[in-house]
């Protein structure tokens, strides 16, 4: 399988009074269509690594390439446009925009990308919601949904621009077993059936064990 993401000697420091070395010389490579989990104890740097890889965090040393783009050193605006097109996000606390309907939440990244007109974006958003079995809630305000429902909407939103990579930060951290299972199945499906690359941080050992590969971080280093 082709390589989709390469990170080379990533070092990151937190400056809170004294320097704290969060990521120590992390290098990794992820292939197209892989379902990768990043695990580790609290403070091991697993979330930091995800945010560095996702281009949201630019305060690091080292080099990152995603697809054929060398993303290290790009400007904030270029990175925003890059994320819009190539990366989908799912977060622990759902992070839907509460004043917008479910459908609008899903449509927003596609409207921003502006590749299709509004009607086809709406059609596609409804399709994605249907895949998540959330199409019945399309016109509800997103703040009226339960946690599991919100997370499924968030995944539909992450998929709307057909990104190369989905990055998830503890997507099941707030969910019960049933919903955790649902999210896992969705991710698994996306990766194996549609060839979507998934990188997710989790502290659920069961979730990690069932993914294609898990990368364990110990004190900011990848454990062999």
């Amino acid at each position, binding site marked *: 399988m082709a390589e989709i993401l390469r990170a080379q000697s990533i070092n990151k420091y937190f400056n809170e009074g004294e320097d704290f070395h969060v990521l120590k010389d992390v290098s990794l490579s992820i292939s197209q269509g892989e379902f990768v989990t990043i695990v580790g104890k609290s403070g091991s740097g697993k979330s930091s690594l995800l945010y560095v890889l996702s281009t*949201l965090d630019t305060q690091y040393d080292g080099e990152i390439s995603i697809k054929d783009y060398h993303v290290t050193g790009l400007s904030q605006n270029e990175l925003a446009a890059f*994320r819009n*097109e190539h990366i989908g996000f799912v*977060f622990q606390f759902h992070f839907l*925009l509460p004043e917008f309907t479910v459908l609008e939440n899903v449509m927003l*990244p596609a409207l921003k990308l502006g590749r299709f007109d509004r009607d086809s974006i709406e059609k596609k958003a409804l399709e994605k919601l249907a895949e998540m079995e959330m199409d019945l809630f399309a016109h509800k305000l997103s703040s009226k949904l339960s946690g599991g429902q919100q997370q499924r909407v968030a995944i539909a939103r992450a998929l709307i621009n057909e990104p190369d990579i989905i990055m998830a930060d503890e997507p099941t951290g707030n969910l019960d077993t049933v919903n955790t299972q649902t999210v896992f199945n969705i991710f698994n499906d996306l990766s194996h059936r549609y060839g979507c690359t998934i990188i997710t941080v989790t502290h659920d050992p069961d979730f990690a064990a069932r993914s294609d590969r898990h990368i364990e971080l110990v004190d900011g280093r990848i454990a062999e």
Partner: protein
Amino acid sequence: MSLAINIGIAKTHLLSRKKQSLIAMLGVTFGIAMFIFMISFMKGVNEFLSDTMLSSTPDIHIYNDISTDYSKSIAGEYFRDSSVTVSVSHPKPKEVTINIKNAYDIVADLKHDPSVLAVSPYLSTQAFYNYGPVQINGMIEGVDILQEDHLYKLHEKMSSGKLENLLTTDYGILMGQGLADKLNVRMGDLVSLATPNGTSMRFRIVGTFKIGIGQIDNVKSYVNIPTVQQLLEKDRNYITDIAIKLTNIKYARAEAALMSRKYNYTAEDWETANSSVTTSNLIRDILTIVVSVTLLVVAGFGIYNIMNMTIASKMKDIAILKAEGFARRDIAQIFLSQSLAIGILGALTGIALGFMLSYAMSNVPFPKNEFIGLKYFPVIFEARYYIFGFGFGVLTTFFAGVLPSVKASKVDPVAILRG
């Protein structure tokens, strides 16, 4: 495209907290409305005062000022070459005539001046109007009534009779309405008056006028020039004052200075003669601007506050939008357009409210007053104040929105998403 989406998001944000948006908007509305109302009213008052002032003051007034310069004396001249110090205690003027010696030459000369619209020579004196045994103090002015009409549009202010009656009647008099009321006389009645030097004369009232200023209507009468010359026992060339109306009132001050030098008499322009009115106009203007700017700045701070609160409560949304691929510029646009929308809507409603307040004020009857002839409160309606109010309102909200919006665009998404 991107702007349309950002404005769409801004719209959803505004509509999802209607009360807050409405209150922010009302701040601007009241600011602009008060600005428009105040400036329309104040400018109306200014204009009214200027108009009444100009209806009784010539643009330029030429007269012979009594000299109070006693630095030279005959004794001083006589002893000039000797080493004697001359001191004269309590000097008083010799008997001077206060007329303009070559008045008709000056009038003829002024009529050739292209910047002069009308010239009216006149002479006036104190007079005592006899009302039975009581004498009422007043003024009598000898004028060329047609020239005087050119200056002050007297024919519009006649409350009875006609101006021309003065020319066709021997010993006719046009009397101020207030004075006629005091004397209990009407058109066609006879009135006798006396001058300070003792001559007295009987006149027939051929008309009454009402200028709208008590100080004039209650004391003044017009007669022909020769009548006053006769009353004062002076010759046919005796003229004490020349009133001038210019084609452009703005040049009054400069023209007055020129005329003063040319004819060697005091020439006073209307602004100098009415400096209290021009000063109070200026003070009203300053007051209006200060109060309006304060109102708008307060409204601006209100918007600044609300925008800051909005952004504080929208941190998560900003982070998620940034993760989704919205750039810093987009975030700034989203919040700035909210502030601008508040400003534009507020300014528009403010203009409407300001107009309604001004219109209502212009229909409030002015308290009846014998000194000022005014039926309703004076209010003017001028488009430029509305345009200025709108522009200023939008500008204030723009500046109030810039800082919070820039702050929002700088939010670090990682810090918020990590929780």
